[in-house]
């Protein structure tokens, strides 16, 4: 799968805005720009303030739409949450290199923490249902899980407050030797732990990283990911990296 070349789409129409939990929303936008799972868009729904667009992963897509699953955690995501059907957003993307689907083999574990489920959702949808196990951790109320279950995906949930599934972190219910390849997305400490577990078990792992961004396309170098080959750009060389190459505690 080659990545489509990115475009800057001004005034893309909002088709739907759904509130899934207290602070998690799903925004669906009319655009034909698509992408591959793990790629992202720089999104803005405001004019001048804040200054920069926000990187948000592709959560779902088809020929005419892209959906984003996002958690409100600051000014930008707050403004996104104010959008209503018929509103407009500016999108730049699809950007970055997504999951290397060709390298996923055998039993595949998708280990996510919180909003990390966003990009892995569309990956899970593309893979043969019987090969995939999603191990998803949340602070409290889960989201996006019900839909995966409907699709027949094996989903195992852990919540920190025990309100659903196992109480605790998703890493506690993740048993690397049971899988042939692993994909992970979530907070850095969680991914570091997953990477460590995978390394210990000798299981290849792809991790989708986050970093604050400015350009989003590889020009400004503000989004480094320290790797064994030196600093890579999360936006352009990632966001998906081979977990074994990432220096997790730099």
């Amino acid at each position, binding site marked *: 799968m080659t990545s489509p070349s*990115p475009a*800057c789409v001004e005034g893309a129409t909002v088709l739907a805005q759904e509130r899934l939990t207290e602070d998690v929303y799903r925004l669906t936008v009319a655009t034909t720009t698509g992408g591959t799972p793990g790629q992202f868009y720089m999104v803005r729904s405001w004019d001048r303030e804040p*200054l*920069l*667009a926000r990187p948000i992963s592709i959560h779902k897509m088809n020929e005419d739409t892209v959906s984003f699953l996002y958690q409100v955690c600051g000014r930008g995501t707050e403004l996104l949450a104010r959008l209503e059907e018929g509103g407009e957003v500016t999108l*730049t993307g699809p950007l970055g290199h997504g999951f290397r689907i060709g390298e996923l083999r055998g039993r595949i574990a998708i280990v996510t923490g919180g909003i990390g489920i966003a990009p892995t959702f569309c990956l899970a949808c593309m893979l043969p249902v019987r090969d995939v196990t999603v191990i998803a951790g949340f602070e409290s109320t889960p989201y996006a899980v019900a839909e995966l279950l409907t699709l027949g995906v094996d989903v195992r949930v852990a919540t920190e407050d025990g309100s659903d599934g196992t109480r605790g972190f998703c890493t506690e219910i993740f048993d690397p030797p049971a899988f042939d390849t692993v994909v992970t997305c979530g907070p850095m400490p969680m991914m570091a732990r997953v990477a460590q577990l995978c390394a210990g078990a000798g299981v290849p792992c792809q991790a989708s990283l986050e970093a604050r961004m*400015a350009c989003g396309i590889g020009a*400004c170098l503000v989004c*480094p990911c320290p790797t064994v080959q030196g600093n890579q750009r999360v936006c352009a060389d990632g966001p998906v990296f081979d977990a074994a190459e990432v220096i997790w505690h730099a």
Partner: protein
Amino acid sequence: MLETTLCGVTLKNPVIAASGTFGFGAEYDDFFDVGKLGGICTKGLTLHPREGNPGLRVWETPAGMMNSVGLQNPGIPVFLERELPRMRTLDTAIIANVGGGDLEEYVEGIRLVSGAEGVDIVELNISCPNVHEGGMAFGIDSDVAAGVVAAVRRVCTKPLMVKLSPNAEDIAAMAIACEQEGADAVSLVNTFKALAVDIHTRKAVFDNVTAGLSGPCIKPIALRMVWEVARAVHIPVVGIGGIATWQDALEFIMAGATAVQVGTATFIKPTTMLDIIDGLERYCANEHLTSLSTVCNILGTVPNCNILRRIP
């Protein structure tokens, strides 16, 4: 209409991509024909490769952003081998921005870069606030700067443009010192030394504590500095700092800039520079100007400026 000559080099127009915000030019080629730009300044280059700074590298501020990249670059030899050939296919002027940790690195770096086919102008960066040694340390005191410029001038076989720091003690004196030591142009401003505090961790946001502020927030100060420098020197001045619209660019030109560089605004919208070029073209057409040089430095000629010429 917009064709501009900058220290002997012909630019299609006076709109140049600012160093560190446009990679080596190829990145934005997906979004527009970068050959339409007047020129591209490379990411700051040093003789030896650099990994840049650890920790967070970007932070948003009201109408601006702070960065602490710290001159991450592959080193000049790798640039010449890998990036320059690709840049030369972009059909726009190539300005090599060169930093250094000490005088020797500057001199060797510029010797190498200026000798390379395809480099049109060398931009000497004595104004990076994000590296511990060198960088801005050379750009605060005019005498120190003069020493670097003099040394570099001797080895630089291409037009030499010195990029000034807004943190300089006296920006006009700094520009004069550069002119006296043989600079062919000055560009200003680089980023402002700034601070952000994370009140939760009770620490500075950046590992380096301070970082460089850029974007629309700095425009009014940058514009004042460009005006002061344009009145002080006879070499061309390239205006930089918060330019986001063609009106902003025109303000810098009227204040005395021969050309402008656009940095942060490209992050807001990849095609910002094309919009600026279009706007300047429309302006010239509407005002029946055959060249922007008609209005360049026009502020220096209006009465209200003359009043102040005598004021320090």
